[in-house]
């Protein structure tokens, strides 16, 4: 067991912790030239150059807004569908699940290409809303899966309790379901936001380059920015989900019956 633990730690350090640390260090120092015998030249230049770029801030705000909107719609859709899937047994449920999973199995590029003309026709191409809609495609199936599992874990009979006691649909959602779904919402926050931040091709296609999200700034940056700036940019990508997670976590404290850290019950 001790050997296993040591092995585990080595693997985790080697493949997950050290790369992240190295990226962090690189973002805080000038590009490395170890083979020439140079040491590390610390500094904030990576970040300061990055933040001087006005496009970065615009893209950050747009990405965050899209992220929140995508998350909100995902939670709503996931909640309804997960609940429907968990509480009603059907024949052919496996097929229904396959159907709901299909948007992430069909290449999103194919879907975006197919929607392109339609988006132009109804005026959603090159707009925030068009990009928002196309970002739903690779995220919603995950949300449904996560919420479905959570509802199954909570159990059908537990879900009947509020109903029997006299709660209406929305009262039940806010007082019982959402509080019990908190872990699912946490996973969902990270998952949807990271997926949304990962979309270059479909965002460029539907947004037409006019809806500026972070990936659209990142790719051109690759051409001429040095490694420090790019490392800083990479870290910036990871900070956004963390930042949005903090917001979501604080919002969830407003859900009824939250155990607030500063309030001691007993």
């Amino acid at each position, binding site marked *: 067991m001790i050997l296993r633990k040591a092995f585990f730690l080595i693997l985790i350090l080697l493949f997950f912790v050290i790369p992240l640390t190295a990226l962090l260090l690189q973002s805080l120092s000038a590009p490395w030239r170890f083979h020439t015998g140079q040491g590390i030249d610390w500094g904030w230049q990576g970040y300061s150059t990055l933040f001087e770029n006005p496009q970065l801030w615009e893209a950050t705000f747009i990405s965050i807004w899209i992220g929140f909107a995508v998350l909100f719609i995902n939670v709503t859709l996931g909640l309804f569908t997960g609940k429907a899937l968990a509480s009603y047994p059907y024949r052919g449920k496996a097929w229904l699940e396959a159907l709901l999973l299909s948007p992430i199995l069909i290449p999103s590029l194919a879907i975006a290409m197919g929607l392109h003309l339609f988006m132009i026709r109804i005026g959603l191409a090159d707009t925030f809303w068009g990009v928002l809609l196309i970002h739903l495609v690779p995220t919603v199936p995950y949300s449904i899966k996560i919420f479905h599992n959570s509802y199954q874990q909570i159990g059908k009979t537990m879900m009947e309790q509020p109903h*029997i006691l006299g709660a209406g649909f929305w009262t039940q959602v806010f007082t*019982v379901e959402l509080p*019990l779904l908190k872990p699912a919402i946490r996973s969902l926050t990270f998952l949807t936001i990271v997926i949304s931040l990962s979309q270059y091709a479909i965002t460029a296609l539907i947004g037409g380059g006019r809806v500026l999200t972070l990936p659209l700034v990142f790719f051109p940056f690759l051409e001429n920015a040095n490694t420090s700036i790019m490392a800083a940019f990479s870290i910036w990508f990871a900070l956004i989900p963390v930042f949005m997670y903090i917001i979501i976590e604080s919002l969830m404290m407003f859900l009824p019956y939250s155990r607030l850290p500063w309030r001691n019950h007993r």
Partner: protein
Amino acid sequence: MTQTKLEMKNITKTFNQDTILNDLTFHLEKGEIMSIVGPSGSGKTTLLRILAGLEKPTEGEIIMNGKEITKQKANRRSISLVFQQPLLFPHMTVKENIDYGAKVSKKYKAEKIESLLEATGMARFRDHYPSEISGGQQQRTALARAMATEPEVILFDEPFSSLDPSLRQDLRYWVRDFLASRETTAVFVTHDMEEAMIMGDQIAVFENGKFQQIGTVETLHQSPANMRVASFLGGHLILNDHEFVPLHAVQLGSQKTSENGVSFHASVEHITYQHGRPIVHLYIRELEKKISLPINESLPKQEVQVTIPCDSIKTFSGEIL
């Protein structure tokens, strides 16, 4: 004056061609407690779920206080259901759980919650979370939560079966007194005849989708409607499809004890003790029946003679009510 609180008329429920409930009819007076007893898997839970509004009957109607409520949703019915599992909300404390029932049914009064906490003995644990209290305490909290909605009828679905036996015994009496003191109308489902007798003013024997008989304990024992009821009660020796003998009339001996009677050969299978008395378990080969009788002294013999006086043989009443 009594008034009919809850009435069920010709309720039928079919599911994939199986008839689970077949033309059920009964009524309850205000403050009356009825036990429904039957073997596991006989559809008792479905019956309760239909009463509570969680499922819809295929046919028939439910009437409460003279108004039809068959189509009303569960959250609009003044009926509460306590399950086998306590199913408390894990993210709420004991008090919050009880409050919840009162709040969502818009019947919140601080004093009422306090009295429920006192009555269930949970006042001391008001700020505990469900995971921090015992199974019995959880079930009491669940009951308090159900009572907080001030239901006109409360339904119980084997609420004690997940508890250990000693706790179960205490809780049975406690719930019974609790309901009686509040004159709450209740339906109590169980597969345990003893529990049914403790909890109910009336007992309905339910099997094969039908009420085999509804009546008081005395009626059931004195004139069981049919074989099924008698075999479920376990207090009779069933001779054939329409005749039975109460066990207390059965005589034991090494020879036939009465001239004017029927006699069977029986083998002694076991002797156990119950309530301080020896009980002999016999197998009557001729009838393919097993019976258990209290005896005064130990029977040394392997083989005995069972005698049934002719005048104690009765026929099944055949009457459901």
